[in-house]
């Protein structure tokens, strides 16, 4: 690196002109962050403490440390199992267990109530009654058949007098 000062250049030119315009070398390398570490080490050896860090930098450092701590904690802490909601828990129960519990606790709930709460299915409700499924179905068929008998569209077309006669016969009016 040739001197830039004119007096020094002139002096050099008188003795060895080529050296006055010697090619510019690259700066020798130093490790990254070296000068910060140098200051730090010198201050530790002399005033015996670390370099004074501005207050703002301290707060920023502290905040960054807290964020990192929080993130680390989130990753490392044992993950609690998410509590399933009440309906899901109920859905997993076997309806017989539910019935057994209700009986042991002397809670009197009808199958209809259990059914409306979604705790059991219609089939479960029927099964819980102890009534044979065939009998139930037969009953339903019979009742349906009876209802059919009284459906208005199957009734003969009657005038008002005929209706009155009919009510008098059937209901003693």
């Amino acid at each position: 690196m040739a001197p830039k000062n004119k007096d020094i250049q002139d002096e050099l030119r008188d003795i060895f002109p080529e050296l006055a315009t010697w090619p510019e070398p690259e700066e020798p390398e130093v490790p990254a962050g070296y000068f910060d570490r140098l200051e730090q080490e010198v201050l530790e050896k002399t005033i015996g403490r670390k370099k004074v860090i501005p207050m703002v930098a301290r707060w920023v450092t502290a905040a960054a440390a807290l964020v990192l701590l929080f993130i680390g904690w989130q990753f490392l802490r044992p993950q609690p199992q998410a509590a399933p909601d009440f309906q899901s828990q109920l859905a997993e129960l076997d309806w017989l267990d539910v019935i057994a519990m209700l009986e042991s606790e002397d809670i009197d709930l009808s199958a209809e109530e259990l059914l409306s709460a979604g705790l059991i299915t219609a089939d479960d409700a029927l099964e819980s009654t102890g009534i044979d499924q065939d009998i139930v179905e037969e009953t339903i068929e019979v009742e349906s058949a009876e209802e059919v008998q009284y459906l208005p569209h199957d009734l003969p077309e009657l005038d008002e007098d005929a209706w009155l006669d009919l009510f008098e016969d059937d209901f003693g009016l």
Partner: protein
Amino acid sequence: MAWTDSDILQQFRDPRTREKAFTALTQQYSKRVYWHVRRMVEDHEDANDITQNVLVKVWRKLDDFREEAGLFTWIYRIATNEALSFLEQRNRRQSVPLEPESASAAAGAYLDAEEAEDRLHHAINTLPARQKQVFLLRYYDEMPYEEMSSVLDTSVGALKASYHHAVQKIKEQLTSH
């Protein structure tokens, strides 16, 4: 904020602001000390050790500084003496003195920067210690003779003569076959 030498010295003498002043001094001058030493000893690790020693000495001796020279001139003197002591010890340990590899090319003739600097360094390393020191301060640090006189405690005339001899020897090294 850059501190003046006067601020540093004034605050260093007050026990309440002593550490703050030295922190400012370190921030302001450690880099310059390092490069001065690095040019003399070349190796980074050696330069690092010497720079740290220099600044520790400055810390211990700053109370005795009488302001007969500028603060950095005084620090420069400590750095130069430390580097010279190191070089003398290293030269004693080395059985074979450093020799330039080849200085056959004419100085400045179509050299790339790296090669030119290498050759110049080899030539500088053949100089006697005092001439080397004068050459480095003049050529790289562009230090006026008056300031150099204070750093090296030598007359300006003697320094000019040393510098002249140093450049002549470098010329011979770089142009000889």
